[in-house]
């Protein structure tokens, strides 16, 4: 491509000198470019002392996951607590929960980018990495929950010599497409944004071997205006592709339930309800990770209280959406005239054997966000941290409750049976949590987790420096 006049395509949006004061609060302490770069890259080059042991601990926890996976594959799904009628339980719950968590990352990086929300800059790489690692955990479960996991590729439309294709009316085949697309786009999006910072690492790293490794991943980035221009265009295009995925992926995941005939599953409200829930739990996870990281890496001046406040507001919005969905679902069951659905939503869930589960979900998902109406809570890192944990627990239990209540008491009373998870179920959930944290800590160790270049650009934008 021939080099055109560079000035025609602005590298950054025109500096807005009249940026409102609350935006100014996003970067409260002006620093020189060099200082900012040095500070942020230094956090990667000289990791804090706790990081090594933390990686080792979570790595050890990940071996539990490995052991549980191997045991399940060798022995059979029978080592889980699943039964007939509750043929799905922890496995699918974990899948939906993890994939939901991923959504906040994409939402922050893509949606907010397109909406030109400046506060996303400090946290977007964090959120994107979280998305990626969450989708990795999520992807494990659909594979593992199959009775014959080694034939997973039968769900993929590949030209088989037998001329057999997947059955496209099943939402599980849509799932495969949705999740694999999501993983691919998330990975590309994250990596594309990362390239300039990897190049910075290449330039800053003290040791030769490290510079070499970063050089490989920086793909020959040299920071010319042309390269920047192309990177920004590609980034924008990928954001355009990723943004609809925020809505589509979890809509499709929700159809794993909505296309079923079961009372409590068979509902058209599921796609928006699931998307809201996904973003809800995702923002909670971003905060859960960000609040300690911000503290441990002394990043309060980059990830400010204002950032926390904005994300808390997102929690409040999505939490209210989820609460609204609960109410609509119950109301429609009440007026809908389907006796099975009415029984499920008005009897089995609030009063049945899993009632404690239901009421915990209500308390966590509908109760906790109410605290966020208070500005003081929103701006208190500790309170927020506690609330996000409660919301994550609530969202995980919500999926479990949704799955096992409908399955355990669907139509014929004779087929109704309870459900009890096994030790392996717990090991898999705990194991993915460890593995997720492990991947995240490795990310913190090797990759610039605050987007240096974007932050500098923001600095220019906000202060109008040229």
């Amino acid at each position, binding site marked *: 491509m021939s080099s055109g006049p560079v000035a025609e395509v602005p590298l950054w949006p025109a500096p807005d000198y009249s940026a409102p004061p609350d935006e100014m609060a996003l970067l409260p302490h002006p620093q020189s470019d060099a200082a900012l770069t040095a500070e942020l890259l230094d956090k990667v080059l000289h990791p804090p002392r706790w990081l090594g042991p933390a990686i080792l601990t979570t790595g050890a926890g990940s071996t539990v996951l490995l052991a549980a996976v191997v045991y399940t594959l060798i022995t059979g*799904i029978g080592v889980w607590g699943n039964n007939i009628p509750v043929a799905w339980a922890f496995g699918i719950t974990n899948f939906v929960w993890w994939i939901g968590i991923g959504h906040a990352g994409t939402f922050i990086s893509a949606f907010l980018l397109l909406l030109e929300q400046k506060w996303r800059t400090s946290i977007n790489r964090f959120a994107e990495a979280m998305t990626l690692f969450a989708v990795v955990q999520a992807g494990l479960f659909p594979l593992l929950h199959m009775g014959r996991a080694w034939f997973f590729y039968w769900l993929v439309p590949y030209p088989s010599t037998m001329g057999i294709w997947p059955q496209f009316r099943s939402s599980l085949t849509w799932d495969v497409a949705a999740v694999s697309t999501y993983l691919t786009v998330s990975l590309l999006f994250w990596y594309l944004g990362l390239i300039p910072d990897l190049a910075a690492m290449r330039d800053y790293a003290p040791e030769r071997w490290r510079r070499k490794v970063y050089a490989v991943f920086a793909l020959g980035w040299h920071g010319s205006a042309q390269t920047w221009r192309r990177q920004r265009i590609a980034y924008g295009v990928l954001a355009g592709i990723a943004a609809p995925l925020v809505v589509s992926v979890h809509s499709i995941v929700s159809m794993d339930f909505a296309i079923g*005939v079961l009372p409590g599953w068979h509902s058209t409200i599921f796609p928006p309800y699931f998307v809201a829930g996904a973003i809800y739990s995702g923002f909670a996870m971003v905060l859960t990770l960000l609040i300690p990281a911000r503290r441990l890496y002394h990043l309060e001046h980059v990830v400010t209280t204002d950032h926390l406040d904005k994300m808390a507001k997102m929690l409040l919005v999505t939490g209210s959406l989820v609460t609204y969905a609960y109410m609509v679902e119950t109301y429609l069951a009440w007026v809908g005239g389907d006796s099975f659905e009415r029984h499920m939503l008005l009897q089995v869930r609030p009063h049945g054997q899993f009632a404690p589960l239901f009421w915990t979900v209500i308390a966590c998902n509908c109760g906790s966000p109410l605290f966020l109406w208070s500005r003081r809570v929103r701006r208190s890192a500790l309170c927020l941290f506690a609330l996000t944990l409660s919301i994550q627990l609530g969202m995980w239990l919500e999926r479990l409750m949704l799955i096992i209540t409908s399955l355990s008491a669907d139509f014929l009373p004779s087929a109704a*049976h309870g459900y009890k998870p096994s030790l392996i179920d717990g090991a898999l959930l705990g194991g993915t949590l460890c593995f997720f944290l492990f991947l995240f800590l490795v990310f913190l160790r090797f990759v610039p987790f605050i987007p240096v270049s974007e932050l500098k650009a923001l600095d220019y934008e906000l202060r109008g420096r040229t």
Partner: protein
Amino acid sequence: MPPLTSFGSRPRLDPGVPEFDAQQEHAPSELSRREFLYLSGATIALSSQALLGCTRAPAEKIFPYRVQPPEIVPGRALHYASASTLDGYGTGIVVESHEGRPTKIEGNSAHPASLGASSAAQQALLLELYDPRRIRTVTRGGLPALGDDLTRALRAAGALERRGRGVHLVLGASSSPLLARQLAMLQSKLPELAVHFHVPLSRTAAWQGSRLAFGSTLEARVDLRRADVVVAIGADMLAQGPEHLAVARAFADARRMRTSTDAMNRLYVVETSMSVTGGMADHRLALVPSQMPAFAAALLRELAVALGAAGMPGDLAARLAAQADTLASHGAFVRAVARDLLTQRGRGAVLAGDHLPAAAHAAVHAMNALLGNHALSYAPSPIIGSEQESFGSLRALREALAARAVDSLIVLDRDLAYASAADLELESLLGRAKESIYFGLFANQTSAACNYRAPAAHVLESWSDTRSLGGTTSIVQPMILPLYGGQTPSEVLAVLIGAEQPSAHELLRDFWREQRPNDFESFWETTLSRGTVEGTEIAPVTSPSLSWGWLRQLVESTPAPGGVELNLIADTRLHDGLLGNSPWLLELPCPVTKQCWGNAALIAPALARRLGVSNGQVLELTRGGRTVALPALIVPGHADAALTLALGWGQKYESGQESFGVSGYRLMASNEQAVAPLQIRVTGQLDELALTQDTMSLGESADSILLSSTLADYQKAPKALTPKLKRPLSMYASDAPESERQWGMTIDLNACTGCSACVVACQAENNIPSVGKNGVLKHREMHWLRVDRYLGGSEAAPRVLVEPMACQHCEKAPCEYVCPTGATTHSTDGLNQMVYNRCVGTRFCSNNCPYKVRRFNWFDYHQGEASPRELAENPEVTVRARGVMEKCSYCVQRIRKAEIAAKVGHRPLLDQDVRTACEQACPTQAIRFGDINDARSEVAALRQSERAFQVLPELGAVPRTRYLMKLTNPNPELK
């Protein structure tokens, strides 16, 4: 086999033992050339013997396949008629055999006690044959022994000069003509030989009752087709008893309701615990066991007053009235039943359960005689020794053992130590016999107490004969050579009599040649191929004369014990516990409680409240100084002041380890009259009950699940009760072109008793694994067909509704569109198919199945099965591996087989050509299968019935299986 004694494993090499020196003499170091040749020759001979021993082809007639025998085509099953025996009564069976390996048992339609149906216990004979736990070798004192030594021990017992003194023979009840002859010969040879019949659940009281009423031992036979009013007093005649398959068929025939104007019988049941028969009752009264004779007395009095009983002593009649007053609270019920019987005079039937006292049986005989009920007939019993008062009593054996007067005890496959009243203490006394020989299928406490333990031949390995209740004789043919060289009872008896090398085949043929000397070979051939011996039915006694001598016994017999009464009953699946503990039976849910892999203390809700216990809380039951602990299970409809315990569980293995459940024999007394009352202690411990159904209430959507009504309402407006079916709209065009044949099923809930024979038949046909108690506790049972049971009405008087539930083969199947790999699809002839090879096991299909009839292979269930269990598998059905779904296939292998046969034979496929395993086993013909497009088919006609309905019609799945509404026929007087 001399090498075994000289080189085989020996308990100890004590130099003092003479054999030790003998072995030294033949030490291999001093082998001469001559001896070397001698030994190597023997080795060659032995190894060729061993090679021959690998095959299990029948020994009698063997030809190489060079010229293929016309009847054997590899891959094509052969069917042989035979018979199974329970408590001495024979029932005809047809055994399917693949290349000399029996794989399935069906009923024999030519046999009057089967009529083509089969019971769960009969189906389970197959698994018993291949049970890996069977006794395989002869042992003495736990160490390998020689068959020759065993024979010598038997001969010593049968030595002429001993005249049988001190020789005790224990065998089960039998009706075998051959055995009867042998026993007679034995007793003439050895006059002092003691023969004990061991029958834990004998019909002694019923026989005694007939002796009281008629003066001779007669069996009452009932034809329920000729009865409009049936009164069952403690009788579970639809699920238990020598002819229950035929009785259930007749009962269902009288309730078939092909059109709304048909007549239907009315069933009254008086019982303690809920039974299968009780579930079918139009009116049911729960009474404690001691009130049963009082009920019989009260009903007899009502009838006698109305009909004027000639010959009834006056003073006793007065006392009868006094006793009837003890049931005054149920007076309305008694009067209503009596009036119903009187209005339908001659077209009624009163039946008594086997465990009722003799006088109550006599009272029932008297009632039937007074009413002139045509449904009842009386004939001598086919059981050997049934005329003896002491039949089935082991008291004489106990006394002989206690006095150390037993020199030789020969037990033919009877676990005496387990299945006998605990106060006889046989478990500890059996060891006192000087020489004891146990022939059996399984090692148990009795075999442990005997010196010799030898394998017995299984019924599918034996030549013998047996008779049904009505006398119809069947020849039992072996389907396979004895797997472990087991002996039949006739062979053991023949050795005692003095035969050299008896063969059951020869003994049987010789016996029947004497019976039918003319053209014996053709008689033999036709009999074997048909399964019954013509002209062996026992003629009924025409109008036996009734005496009233027993009436005093009836009015005096019933003491009123306080407290909670113990009601020991036969288990609906394991019967008396001597059926071999087959996993199929252990895992079959009880038709009433839905419990499997164990028994429980069944109590009424009222008693549970009084004791403060809920399901699964362990109760400690003490009676006569013996205590057992087992979980409580609340059964609505149970009599309040009684506790029911099913026998047949808790059998001990040889090691002393108990199998599943708790043995009720521990609380049984040899004299039930003189026993201490039952004491119950609540322990506070919890035991997990393996229940396959937790909820028995239909809930608010009852009308979508199971339709039931009363006869009167139905006849008033036959069409009003079933909802009009609309074909639901669908986004998708029909997937496949429809073929001409469309398979479908109907299940008549008015005929289904819930006996669950179909469940085991399905399991046997379709290679369905058992998952064990832990599997059931985790709700992972694999049954393709289950029998759902719901309760309506009140807690004290529940209305029982049963509904067999298997894959409904929905035309718009919810399972099909959610399968990501297309592993479950629809065939052009209307089958919802499962392609095991394509299944990856996402289980979405099961989640989306509204009927929850799909089953998942959580583990590799078949991998863990010990040899030779795998021989029982049906070669026509895939054995499923781990990780795939499975479900009812409408027995597709049978459909295709019949279709191919019809095509090859250039003939049309007839309605009766295809019968599913469940349909074939069903005693009441409640299940019907066929082509719904064939206007002449039974199933097409039944689908048009006004009673036909779909389960969950509103989902639009259009299930192929249709159900016919359940009707009850209540007495308007008792509303």
